[in-house]
């Protein structure tokens, strides 16, 4: 089981470019027709897209699970948060720096909640967002 010693663990930074073709695939998948997202070169990204960019361009998108010895099959997404500080638009190159900031046992150890906080900066060094995910590890087999 993951314990407090995991807090502070940092993982390989991920650099991702906001590519128009990949973004269009995402928009089409969600049935998103809002013209604001298809408005040429300076189009903004949808509010959850930062999460995708990090996974798409990570050499190992599940690195933090492997590093902490967590089985992918036992993981659920518990919470997700985005704080937006500056615009992210098509053409930007973003860097994600994930770090474990919390480990909490729940239900007598049946579940462990792990918080990974990820500051995001752009190609100009601007801190554009903070992304925070909480994953739930199911430590016990479901009955």
């Amino acid at each position: 089981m993951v314990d407090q010693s995991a807090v502070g663990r940092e993982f390989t930074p991920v650099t991702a470019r906001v590519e128009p073709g990949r973004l269009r695939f995402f928009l089409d998948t969600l049935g998103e027709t809002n013209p604001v997202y298809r408005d040429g070169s300076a189009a903004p990204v949808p509010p959850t897209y930062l999460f995708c960019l990090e996974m798409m361009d990570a050499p190992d998108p599940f690195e933090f699970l492997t590093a902490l010895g967590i089985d992918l099959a036992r993981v659920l997404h518990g919470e997700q948060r985005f704080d937006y500080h500056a615009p992210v638009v098509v053409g930007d190159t973003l860097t994600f720096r994930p770090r474990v900031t919390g480990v909490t046992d729940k239900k007598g150890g049946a579940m462990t909640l792990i918080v990974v906080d990820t500051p995001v900066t752009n190609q100009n060094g601007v801190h554009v967002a903070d992304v925070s995910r909480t994953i739930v590890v199911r430590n016990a087999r479901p009955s």
Partner: protein
Amino acid sequence: MSSAPAVGDRIVHKEFPPITRHRLALYCGASGDHNPIHVDIDFAKAAGFPDVFAHGMLVMGYLGQALTDAVTPSRIRSFSTRFAAITQLGAALTCEGTVTELIEQGGEKRARLALTTKDQNGEIKLAGEAIIAL
């Protein structure tokens, strides 16, 4: 938004078509989340689930779409959710957002929205919040 909202106003409301296996496969590719639990029934069963189920972030993506139908993306200051329950295949989701508070923060007028995503049975899948600049 065409005018300043008031506490209690429901400014976000959107319904989405039922979630299909095809949609989950597309989202797997489009999002970079290749966790097989959402697309491979054998993997899902071995993990103790009766079938594949939707990515939480697909459901949050729908909620984000409902939000930015009402609020232009550059006005969203934060967006967060708790994944309250697994979203099953076939779920037809309704996303809603209601103004709960008007605040001054960061030198601007902002509103706090309470957000929910429910399935066709009214079960809450996501419960969240957004802060938007007015």
